[in-house]
């Protein structure tokens, strides 16, 4: 269906520059769900672009070799002329929509192809049913949830009956439930319609067991590997926790889903009965840095938060979990004074514990900065300058810190970033760490992060975990709102679950997370009922055999 013949892509006109991709020489057969995996910057998006024709027609650069899709050479066909064989959906569905209602959006691609009216009518009805969108047909797209929007985006390219569907990180921005919605639809397309799906994704724990085949791009310019999922995962530098556990235990073939892993885990569970995970560090007796009492927040007439109690001590890391719209972001924003409480109180500890407590919404932004810092969902929002150096200088200025403070932080966290780079040209992970450094320039004891692992690959995530652990070790307290159960399991001492603006669970991560299947990390699911959360815990226990009996 898709054939790459000696394909490589080079930026610019290609003299002497290192290739972004390739050489790639392989064939993706018809009717398969092929997953493209690899670390950031390995050329996943570029590879997908060559299939839809956006590379090189839209992005520039030089394409060598030949890509054919259903027999058509993408070099000679522009993306618009490939629209009837390739459907493309990106990470941000909002950047995909041309019209304003669901039904018009589904019809748009067919209108462009000039299909007759009765065909369009029939296909729109079929697609509405296939994707479960029939109830939403007249709704304005802007009012839909993230998962619904992503389904509309997929539907809008399906109506032209493409033979190939190209998806660039379709679930990265979604919460787990919405991601399941989208993956179920893809599964159905592959099984019922025989569509060939080519999909890149960072969140492998969500998708790897759906794939028929995996295309691994190990590094920029390195030779790609295409093969059976288990075989490729055995050597992939990026892999989900269940694969890491399988590799650790030496299982062959590697399990890709929790179900497969549980079947083979009996021996491992037996071996681990002799050990217990290291107990969570006892909470310090120091005064809390952050105290929330009976907090209620209203937006308009809606009560977004109700009766929330929370206190966080120095050195503690707390994960806030819960579905989209549960009030996680609102709570974080209230902690930095963006919403005044409708009832209850929020207090941050005063400087050096001695002074009077600080009430966020009554404190000037310039002063509040030294007590609490928030890294918003999109770190780009926090970056205003045109170079990393200018951004750091501005951050020192804002925080009243000695010149060079922020730059020193950036150098420690991101040694490879140069001064003259534009913040928008950094990778997602680098940008997040830059925003973190900007916030840290004022050395706030309370550090808040909203959805920090969005769009990060495993390497960037591991680095973030290291950075946050070090900060907690130095007496900061960290509160992070996240959907990423693996991150919470690895990092958080305590987990707080919000639902409909109320706290429904608050306790040590191991207890909260294992008690609920929705929030349990893969390792906990495999090794239940034993309370193991992460692969490093298991590895430590197995290495120090006979340690803690």
């Amino acid at each position, binding site marked *: 269906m898709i054939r790459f013949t000696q394909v490589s892509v080079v930026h610019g006109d290609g003299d002497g520059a290192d290739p972004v991709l390739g050489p790639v020489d392989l064939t993706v057969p018809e009717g398969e769900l092929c997953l493209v995996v690899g670390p950031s910057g390995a050329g996943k998006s570029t590879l997908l672009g060559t299939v839809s024709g956006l590379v090189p027609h839209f992005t520039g650069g030089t394409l060598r070799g030949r890509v054919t899709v259903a027999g058509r050479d993408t070099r000679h066909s522009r993306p618009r002329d490939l629209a009837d064989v390739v459907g493309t959906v990106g990470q941000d569905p909002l950047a995909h929509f041309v019209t304003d209602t669901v039904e018009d959006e589904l019809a748009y691609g067919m209108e462009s192809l000039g299909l007759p009216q009765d065909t369009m009518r029939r296909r729109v009805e079929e697609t509405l049913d296939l994707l479960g969108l029939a109830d939403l047909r007249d709704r304005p797209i802007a009012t839909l949830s993230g998962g619904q929007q992503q389904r509309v985006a997929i539907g809008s390219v399906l109506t032209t009956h493409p033979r190939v569907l190209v998806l660039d990180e379709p679930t990265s921005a979604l919460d787990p439930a919405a991601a399941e919605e989208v993956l179920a639809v893809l599964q159905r397309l592959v099984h019922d319609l025989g569509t060939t799906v080519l999909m890149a994704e960072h969140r492998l724990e969500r998708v790897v067991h759906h794939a028929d085949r995996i295309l691994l791009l190990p590094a920029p310019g390195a030779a790609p590997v295409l093969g059976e999922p288990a075989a490729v995962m055995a050597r992939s530098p990026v892999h989900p926790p269940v694969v890491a556990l399988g590799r650790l235990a030496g299982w062959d073939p590697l399990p890709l889903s929790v179900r497969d892993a549980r079947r083979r885990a009996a021996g491992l569970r037996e071996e681990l009965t002799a050990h217990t995970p290291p107990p969570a560090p006892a909470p310090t007796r120091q005064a809390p840095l952050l105290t929330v009492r009976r907090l209620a927040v209203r937006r308009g007439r809606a009560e977004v938060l109700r009766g929330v109690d929370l206190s966080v001590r120095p050195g503690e890391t707390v994960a806030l979990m819960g579905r989209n719209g549960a009030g996680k972001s609102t709570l974080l924003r209230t902690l930095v004074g963006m919403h005044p409480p409708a009832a209850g109180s929020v207090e941050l500890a005063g400087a050096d514990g001695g002074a009077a407590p600080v009430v966020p919404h009554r404190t000037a932004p310039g002063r509040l900065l030294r007590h609490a810092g928030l890294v918003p969902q999109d770190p780009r*929002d926090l970056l205003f300058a045109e170079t990393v150096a200018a951004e750091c200088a501005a951050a020192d200025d804002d925080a009243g810190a000695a010149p060079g403070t922020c730059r020193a932080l950036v150098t420690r966290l991101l040694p490879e970033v140069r001064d003259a780079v534009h913040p928008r040209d950094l990778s997602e992970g680098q940008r997040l760490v830059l925003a973190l450094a900007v916030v840290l320039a004022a050395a706030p004891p309370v550090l808040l992060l909203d959805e920090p692992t969005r769009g990060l690959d495993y390497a960037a995530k591991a680095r973030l975990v290291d950075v946050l652990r070090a900060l907690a070790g130095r007496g900061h307290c960290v509160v992070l709102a996240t959907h990423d159960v693996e991150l919470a399991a690895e990092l958080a001492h305590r987990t707080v679950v919000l639902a409909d603006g109320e706290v429904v669970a608050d306790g040590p991560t191991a207890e909260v997370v294992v008690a609920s299947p929705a929030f349990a990390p893969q390792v906990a699911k495999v090794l239940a009922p034993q309370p193991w959360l992460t692969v490093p815990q298991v590895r430590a226990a197995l290495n120090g055999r006979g340690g803690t009996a």
Partner: protein
Amino acid sequence: MPAPGPLARLAAPQATRSNALHAGAWWLWALGLAAAASRTTNPLLLALLVTVAGYVVAARRTDAPWAHAFRFFLLLGAFVVVLRVLFAVLLGSPIGGTRLLFTLPEMPLPGWLESVRLGGRVTGEAVMFAACDGLRLATLLICLGAANALANPARLLKSLPGALYEAGVAVVVAMTFAPQLVADLLRLRDARRLRGRRDRGVRALLGVARPVLEGALERSVALAAAMDARGYGRTAEVPRAVRRTTTALTLGGLLGVCAGSYGLLAAEGAGLGLPLLAAGLLAALGGLLLGGRRSARSRYRPDRFGARAWLVAGAGAAVAVLVGLASAADPLALNPPAVPLTAPAFPPGAAAAVLLGLLPAVVAPRPAARPAAPAAKEAPA
């Protein structure tokens, strides 16, 4: 429940996508009312026109964002009337009049500003004339506001001829971009607070302008890529002769329109102006229609101009024509003289004609119930 009689079958159905009234019909209706308003300064008739437009809007508007803009047009109308009266009071008015209300101190102006007066006598006649004149303009605006509230702008653009289609898409995209831009602006202003900077004032706004524009630019590039990949701008092969004819017709037509309008407005050559303008318009229209052949697009569920649409448009046209006839037949009633000051008479014939404008409130499909309504219906009675 009795079987629906013939009248019930004629009653307006609930609006769905298939029977939605053509957006053009609403505009024709509103333009008819506006044309009628332009023929009269009788405040009673103008008030009746505003009431008719307002009633139809109240009866047939949807819950869409543009439908809520009608209130804004009402406020704009009130503002126009107040402004017009204020100018008449401050700057004086050519209407003389004998009923002195009060006298403002007159400001002496240099000789070269002889024709302008500041302050001075304010008469009842002058204020009344200004108020009626302002009310006429306000009524025109409110009629346009009614069309704006009732017709879906996106659907109106979809009814454009094929050659103008891409311009229509650009407008729709811009309309969805604007709210996103505002949301970005608010979000980035919040983010300024996180950096410890002030989030109010002009400097704060300027500080976020560049990142907001950068974000918008990134999004437009992504959208352009998505649109291209979805087949935007695919063209059909068109014979060379047709292409050339299209260009010739369009260019020639536009030239004709220019020359014709010049002829109409200039002192001499008015006889040549009208035919030139008509020929130019026809040629340009032909060019547009031929140009549509280059685009291979088809249309999904286009709005049909059905019987109900004809009735709505016809109601507007009837109001315009009948009020026009009435103003010719009885100019004193429809344009009461400013001097002497009298209470305006109520012209029953013209008023009956204006009431015809209520027809859409009966024949246009009823908008679907608001989301809350079905729940209320299910509640035990």
